[in-house]
Every structure is written in C-alpha cells, then in structure tokens.
C-alpha cells in the first residue's frame, strides 16, 4: 500500500514488521526480491498486495495477473466497482501505475481520451480500461462500443463476476440464467434470474476489432498469454476474465480457482479467442464435466440442486443444454494431448484437491 503521507506509511510499515516479523516490501521497488515464493519471482507488480479485497476474490487475482504482464508503461482507467473501491480508499492506493477512476459507465470513454492524449503527445504508453460486468455488459456498454468502433489503441479488460457485487449482488445482464441474486432471488414463484447471460463476446466480435478473448482466473498462463498478445496489438482489444466472487456466488474463499475451472470444464464459460470477428482459437475441454459439478459448488444455484423439485430439474436441464450448446458451437471438445487444454495446465492443478475436499 502506498499512502500519500510518507510519515504514516513508514510508521505503518514498522507496525507490520513488528506484528508479522517480516520485512514488508517497499512499494517503490518495482522489481523486488522478497521473502515469499511470489515475492522472489521478478514480476512487475502493478497492483500491490495489501488492498481491501475479500478473501478469495477472483477479480483481485485477475487484475494482478493482468498488471503483471501489462506494466509498467501503461495507464489505467477503472470503472466504479469493487476493484476501484478496494484498491483506492483515500489516502491509500494499491496501484503502481498511473490510474484514474471517473465513473461507473465511462471507463472506455475516459480511456479513449487518455489514448487520444498519448497520440497527441506522441507517446507509446498503452492505455488499459477496466470494468466489472455491470460497467461493461450494462451501463458502460455504449461507451465501450464507441471505443471499439473508433479504433482506440486500448486493451479493455472486463472482470466478469456475473452480478453487481459492489452494491451487494444484484443481477446484471451477465448473471447466468437461474442464478439467485438479491434482485433475482429464488422463491416460490421464481427460480432465480429468468433471462440468459448476455453473449457479450459475440457483440464485441461484431465490431471486427483485431482481437477479443475470454479467459479465466483458473488458467493464469492462458490469461497472461492473452494479455501479452493484446498488448502487442495496435488497436482496440477486449478481454473478459471470468472471476468468481465468493460473496456473491456463495462459495468458500479457498475454492475460487476450482469454481472458475469447473465453469470452463462444463462449457458454461467458453474460453475462446476471436480475431477480426472470427473465432481463431478455443481452449479445448478433454473431460467435460456436467454443469451440476460447477453449479453445485455455489449457493447462488442452491435452489437447482433439489432433485425432487421439478422446476429445479427443468432449470438444471436448461443450463446443461446451454453448456452443451457452447461446446458444440465453439467445438470445445478436445481430443488427444494438447498443452493448452483444460487438463494440460499444471500450474493451478494443486488447487484441485482443495476444491474437491
């Protein structure tokens, strides 16, 4: 954490040292050698630790992974939302890059202005725009479409946790069908959200931008490869990162990665890459899971898990059909050895046991 008041910061560091017996990292050192395994890896730390995200926050993890391969010559426009709130409670900030938050629905437009300024000044600094699914699928959708159409050199990253988590888990157009939220609660008359999750990536693809992709926090190598690829493109690029929210999805904090992985493995969250409007690449699934394996881990789908409730069975069947459609539409079923497929990623396999415990 960086505080604007240096005296306070030094005092705080001393306090942490006293409390944890560990030398906290000086925030100015961008490529530091610290004590933990993570600290020893020479990665750019654009989003510092010590921010106020919940335990197991998928979005915080995703943002850190994005910043590691994006920085340091970047500037970020961040929409209102959890990411903004937990990283910048005045007078502190967790950002080690220039960062601006304006409003909920305008991060794509603010980023457009930043990019125009860089162009006007002949600078190559890449502009990133961040938003949650509310700020991207819903209220900021128009600004995003405008940004893509005007062909700004910006990487827009949507951290998709499938509801308005910052305001307390209200449904968005990204909330999956049948998920229970505070504005689409399950009850005697309703089985959660009545509508489908918006197929944003197809809409983005229809702008025929150079590159758009989906990724998941469960597959950090894949996510970071996509960020690096997008960073190298001169023009608008878009990345939607599936980021579980333990609070909103109602799962334990330690299974975030496993939940995210199962979303991919069951086909409900297809991980694909789109170039100039055409699907260029998909992450194949070798062992397709039933959707119940994914949904069953989350309280937001708890009302679907009663086999004696015909409504629950019907919705579960519906969700399975949606997943099957994704698998056939994107041709996700993988055959044989493929280092890029869902089973080939070893980096996060350690978490699997935890998820199944």
């Amino acid at each position: 954490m960086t505080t604007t008041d240096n005296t306070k910061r030094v005092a705080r560091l001393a306090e942490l040292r006293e409390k944890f017996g560990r030398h906290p990292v000086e925030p100015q050192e961008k490529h530091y050698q610290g004590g933990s395994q993570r600290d020893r890896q020479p990665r750019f730390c654009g989003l510092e630790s010590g921010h106020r995200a919940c335990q197991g926050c998928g979005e915080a993890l995703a943002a850190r992974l994005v910043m590691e391969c994006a920085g340091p010559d970047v500037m970020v426009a961040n929409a209102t939302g959890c990411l903004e709130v937990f990283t910048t409670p005045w007078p502190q900030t967790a950002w080690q890059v220039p960062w601006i938050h304006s409003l909920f629905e305008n991060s794509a437009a603010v980023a457009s202005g930043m990019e125009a300024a860089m162009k006007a000044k002949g600078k190559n600094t890449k502009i990133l725009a961040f938003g949650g699914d509310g700020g991207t699928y819903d209220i900021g959708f128009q600004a995003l479409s405008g940004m893509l159409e005007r062909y700004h050199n910006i990487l827009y990253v949507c951290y998709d946790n499938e509801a308005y988590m910052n305001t307390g888990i209200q449904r968005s157009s990204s909330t999956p069908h049948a998920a229970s939220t505070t504005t689409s609660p399950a009850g005697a008359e309703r089985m959660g959200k009545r509508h489908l999750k918006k197929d944003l990536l197809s809409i983005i693809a229809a702008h025929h931008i150079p590159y758009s992709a989906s990724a998941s926090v469960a597959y950090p190598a894949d996510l970071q490869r996509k960020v690096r690829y997008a960073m190298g493109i001169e023009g608008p690029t878009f990345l939607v990162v599936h980021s579980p929210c333990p609070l909103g999805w109602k799962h334990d904090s330690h299974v975030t990665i496993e939940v995210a992985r199962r979303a991919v493995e069951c086909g409900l969250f297809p991980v694909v890459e789109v170039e100039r409007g055409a699907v260029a690449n998909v992450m194949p699934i070798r062992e397709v899971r039933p959707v119940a394996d994914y949904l069953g881990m989350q309280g937001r789908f708890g009302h679907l898990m009663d086999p004696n409730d015909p409504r629950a069975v019907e919705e579960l069947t519906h969700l399975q059909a949606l997943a099957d459609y994704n698998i056939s539409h994107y041709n996700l079923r993988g055959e044989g050895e493929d280092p890029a497929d869902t089973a080939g990623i070893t980096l996060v396999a350690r978490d699997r046991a935890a998820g199944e415990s």
Partner: protein
Amino acid sequence: MREALEGSQAIARAVALCDPDVVAAYPITPQTHIVENLSKLVAEGDLHTEFVSVESEFSAASVVLGAAASGARAYTASSSQGVLLMAEVLFNIAGMRIPLTMTVANRAVSAPLNIWNDHADSMAVRDSGWIQLHCENNQEAVDTTIQSFKIAQDTDLPVMVCMDGFVLTHTMEVIDIPTHAQVRKWLPPFVFKRALDPSDPKSLGALVSPDFFPEVRHSHHAAVDKALPVIEKVDASWAKTFKRDCGGLLTVEGPEDAKVGILAMGSTVGTLRTGLEHHDGPGAKLIKLRAFRPFPADALRAAVAGLDSLIVIDRAISPGLGGILGSEVKSTLYGMPNAPRIHNHAIGLGGRDIPESIVGDLLSSIEDPDAPAFSVFDADLSMLPPEDR
C-alpha cells in the same frame, strides 16, 4: 484580423488558435456549427488535434476528462440535453479539479422540446463546481474562449464558456480574430501538475470516506472562490495585449446617479443596452454579469450601491422558486445597508424574441406596487387556460 464571421465559426477558429491536443464532441443544435467548423479545420490540415467523434455527450465529457487528466489541453462543446447527459461527468471533472474548456451554446431544456436559447442548461449544472462565464457578443465569446484555457490551468478548474445559442452561435458579425502567433505568445503551453504519468504513478479518483469528504468539498469551494481574482487578472492581461477586454467579473454602465439598475447575463445585455439608449426618461444602470461561477458577491454589492431598484433578468427558472440569478442576487445583497429592492423577471425563455421595447415595460413595471416578486415577464397568460394563469 477583423472578419465577418458566424459565431460558431469564430469559436472554432478561437479554439484552434489555442492548440488543443484533444477535442471531443457530439453534435447537438445549436452547438453543431462549432464542431462542424472544428472538424473542417482538422480535415483541411489547419488544426492538428486528436478529434474524437464520440457516440454521446456523456462520452464527449469523459474523453476530455481522460485527455486532460493525461496532460492534454482538451476542449468540448454542447447544449441543452447534451449538457444534462454530461451532468454526471461534469461534476466528476470539477470534483477531480481537472482543467479544461467547454463551450455551452445555451439552449432550453426539454420537455417540451425546444431548440432555442435560454440558460436552463448551464443553470442545471451550476452546482457542478465549474467556472461559468457568460458572453454578450461573439467577440467576447472568442476572447473568453481563449482566456478560458488560461483560467483553467491557472486554477486547476474546468471552465464553461456560455454563449447564447442561435443568438450568438448562428449570428454573423464583425469579429477580430487574433493571430496564432499572438495567442501562442499570450497563452502558455498546457500544464497540469497532477497529470497521469507512468514515470511518476498517481491514482486519481479515489474513494473518499466521510473522514475526508468535507475537507475535499471545502477545498473545491475555496478553489472556485479563489478563481475570482484569476478571472480578473487574465482579462486584464488580455486587455493589455489585445487592447480590448471582456468585462472581468462584471461591468456597470449608465449614469452615475441612476436609481434603477438592470442586471443580466449574455446576449440579452446588448438588446437592453440599445433599449436603454432609446428610452426616454431617467437613465438606468446596466450591470452585465460575466462571472456566474464563481459568483462575484463583493463586486456585485459595489455595483448596486446607491440603487433604489434592481431589475434582475433571468433566462431560466427554477419552478417553485422563480428566477435563479434573481434569488442568487437577493441572497448576495441580503443584509447590505440600503440594498435595492429586487424585481426579478424571466424573459426570453425557449428563444422568445426579446424586443428592445421590453426595456420600457420593465422600467414601468417597477412602479407597480402590486407587481409579483417574480414573473415570466413576456408570457402571454391569455394563451393559458384560466386555472394555469
């Protein structure tokens, strides 16, 4: 050089003289000719700027916010519904204390739909924390536009240059446009100390809790207040170089010993001046208010000293209260010894033509002891059903 120019064309030329790095705008009547002319200057290679043709006014304001925050001189323009669509961003720009310039081609706000001039749009965002300057004619609009870039960077505040839609934007008149060299000499390059910069990372737009928020608001209020001398100083510096001024915060004309005054903002002042010149009877003072935000309370108290009556002309109303400018003048003069009696009228709402003969009607209305404290002066109540009169 003196030229016969349409107001909008002159504004586009004035903006171009200031070498903006980024211009973003969305078309709306009556602002359109400004952005059309800017686009033309870009297309002809006479203006080298990043012109961002956005998909809404909301994004226009957001783009200039992002651009200025990144250290670019930025400009936008809008009117009416566009200003209201921008409203959320306008508060944000001011709250973050980002210096930039916006022209408001003043127009009524819907419903009912009306594309003509009054001040409802800029009044609707008067509490956003922007500096708001009003222009009487296109020469003042040109000069104020160029001055606004300097005021913005000297105060770290955004500046709204208000000019009456159609009445100024679509009027051709003789305007003296400075040369590029003159403006470059007078206007320093854009500097924004808090600009985003990867070599010195800063976070702008943090979440501010109740522990700090009142202090932030206090400092914003103080900053807008402190802009008063800056506006005067910049106009004085302009006058020194260009041998004409825009009237600083406000100007007072007319006989020293006049007992009646008329106060107005914008192009209405010109018509009132002509009306007063042709009016028989004891003269009246004409007070032209240029700075609406910050509100020049001291200058106003000095300007009205000695008056028995002050007619305050509003070009917008706050339904349920009355005139907005009128109520601000009243509150400013409250407690002042021998303060004049205020007669507050809205005229020319939604572009109703203001004839010079209105001056006689206004002056005779103050003789009526039963006159209401506020009226929509030129409304023909006979057009309304009896229950609405």
